[in-house]
């Protein structure tokens, strides 16, 4: 069997959720099938400008075919169109215009898929909201599998996506909440689907002590790992954390890891470390008291799974249904809807090492049961097996 993984960007240096998800699944499926990746030459997810010069290369043993983005995204224009379609009555053509503007607009990728459809058994599309998934699935629904990586953001309610979720042969969801949202939105219960998610790659060597020495971090700290961005709720995290410090007088620190798109408050107990290597990231996570997840929109949150894999509990934003659901299913994280709940939950976790330990243990168990690569691979194999039987 030959599988094509179709994704908006692909590369070892790309750490975006869906892209990393795609790469890891592709690399694990390589054990069972012939695998290829079809993607664009883009690196920057804002403009999708061509970055990779070569059309073909091999990454970790997987052939990667890259196609040019013929029209880059103009963020201002895109913002205008998006605001218009989200705030006004509009036509289907407006939504298609939005989709083209969102990109990555690469008709050559779609042309390749159409012309070489007989070379592959299945095309696995990642991220429902981009041009490649919409056009690819519409032109080849009988061979399409969709991994939506959908969050509860307003664009999912566009008419074009309602139909899109009914078309592929199968859909691989990241969480129960994502499945429920898509099912209720498009009534696609008859489309084969399973909640699979993604595993994680834990480096063989990492040390929290080494991390503390290297970055001179002393005492207890909580950690946030990910893009430091308003969309991820980081500004609210800063507000809550500083108010917590002010009210409680705790000496807890907040360590921030990831690329920064937001002004970080200048405070002696907030340490921004920038983008770290995987070893340093896991070292930092292992030494933390808990992982903070202030994001409003998540499809799965791989970093949450990584924390649980290391027995670290999570304090998540309850406004994100997926995070709240994951915390409740795993019993490995608390969640907050407002500052008072944040204060009480964080205070409880700080003052109760036994609770952190017990929740960490639950998290690790939840991870073992649902998110080890063995489990993930078997679920993918089962889906493909069912599709083969239906042929």
């Amino acid at each position, binding site marked *: 069997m030959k599988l094509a993984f179709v994704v908006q960007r692909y590369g070892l240096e790309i750490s975006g959720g869906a892209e990393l998800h795609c790469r890891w699944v592709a690399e694990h499926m390589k054990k069972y099938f012939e695998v290829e990746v079809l993607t664009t030459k883009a690196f920057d997810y804002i403009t999708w400008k061509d970055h990779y010069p070569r059309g073909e290369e091999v990454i970790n043993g997987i052939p990667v075919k890259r196609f040019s983005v013929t029209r880059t995204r103009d963020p201002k224009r895109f913002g205008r169109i998006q605001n218009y379609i989200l705030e006004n009555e509009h036509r289907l053509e407006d939504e298609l215009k939005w989709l083209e503007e969102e990109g990555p607009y690469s008709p050559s990728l779609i042309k390749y898929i159409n012309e070489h459809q007989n070379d592959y058994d299945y095309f696995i599309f990642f991220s429902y909201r981009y041009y490649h998934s919409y056009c690819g699935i519409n032109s080849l629904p009988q061979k399409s599998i969709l991994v939506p990586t959908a969050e509860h953001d307003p664009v999912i309610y566009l008419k074009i996506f309602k139909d899109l979720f009914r078309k592929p042969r199968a859909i691989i969801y990241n969480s129960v909440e994502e499945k429920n949202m898509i099912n209720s939105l498009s009534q696609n219960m008859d489309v084969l689907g399973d909640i699979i998610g993604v595993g994680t790659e834990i480096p063989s060597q990492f040390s929290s002590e080494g991390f503390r020495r290297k970055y001179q971090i002393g005492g207890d700290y909580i950690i946030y790992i990910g893009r430091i961005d308003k969309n991820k709720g980081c500004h609210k995290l800063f507000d809550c954390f500083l*108010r917590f410090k002010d009210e*409680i007088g705790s000496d807890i620190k907040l360590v921030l890891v990831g690329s920064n798109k937001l002004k970080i408050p200048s405070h002696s107990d907030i340490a921004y470390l920038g983008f770290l290597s995987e070893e340093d990231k896991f070292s930092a996570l292992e030494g933390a008291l808990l992982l903070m997840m202030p994001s409003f929109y998540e499809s799965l949150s791989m970093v949450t799974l990584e924390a649980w894999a290391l027995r670290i509990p999570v304090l998540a934003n309850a406004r994100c249904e997926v995070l709240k659901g994951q915390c409740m299913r795993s019993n490995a994280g608390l969640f907050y809807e407002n500052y008072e*709940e944040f*204060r009480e*939950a964080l*205070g409880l976790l700080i003052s109760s090492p036994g*609770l952190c330990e*017990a929740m960490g243990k*639950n998290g690790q168990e939840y991870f073992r049961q649902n998110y080890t690569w063995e489990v993930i691979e078997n679920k993918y194999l089962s889906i493909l097996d069912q599709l083969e039987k239906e042929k």
Partner: protein
Amino acid sequence: MTDKKEQKKFIKKEEINIDYDNIDVADIMDQIKRKIATQPIKAAEGDLKNEAFYSSFGPSPAGPEEPSGTKAKVKKLLLRVMKPFSPLIKVMIFPVHQETQNNFDQTNRRLDLLNEKLEGELGKIHEKLDHLNQATNKRVDLAFEGLNKALEYTKLLHSLSHNIVVELTKLKIEQENLKVKIRIMEKDFEFLGRKEKAIEKEIFK
């Protein structure tokens, strides 16, 4: 300092019952919510902060209740009615000094002069407009006359055409009748010719 000590009570874990062998986060969160609900509401500053934080997480909690009763309703209604006049009321309650009064008088005189000028100009414009109107009316009357004549001619032409068509139709029918008569006469003539030949034969036998 006392405040901080007082606030530290929020993180006392004893107030939350936890079964460490069987953690239930939903239950822990319920206990936290109940605990928050029983905490006294803080002073004004705290309230303001709370409001800001609530608004940042979503819809803010209900504000203080407004006074009820007929008096309050009347007051509310009056405030709503008078709202458009509030700038004027504000101007009226300002103290008017002599200098300001003089300025007002000067401005009023200037306005009167401007008003007179404006009225004169408007009168001239009206006159011009009347002339234009009369000329336009004459032209319109002429145009209507021509139009009516054209209409009559058209009617006559239409009637004429109709009559010609009727006459032509009659002539056509007449022509057809004559053709039929000619054909009958030809046949009669042919018959008479044959009869003549037959009689001649009988005579000259």
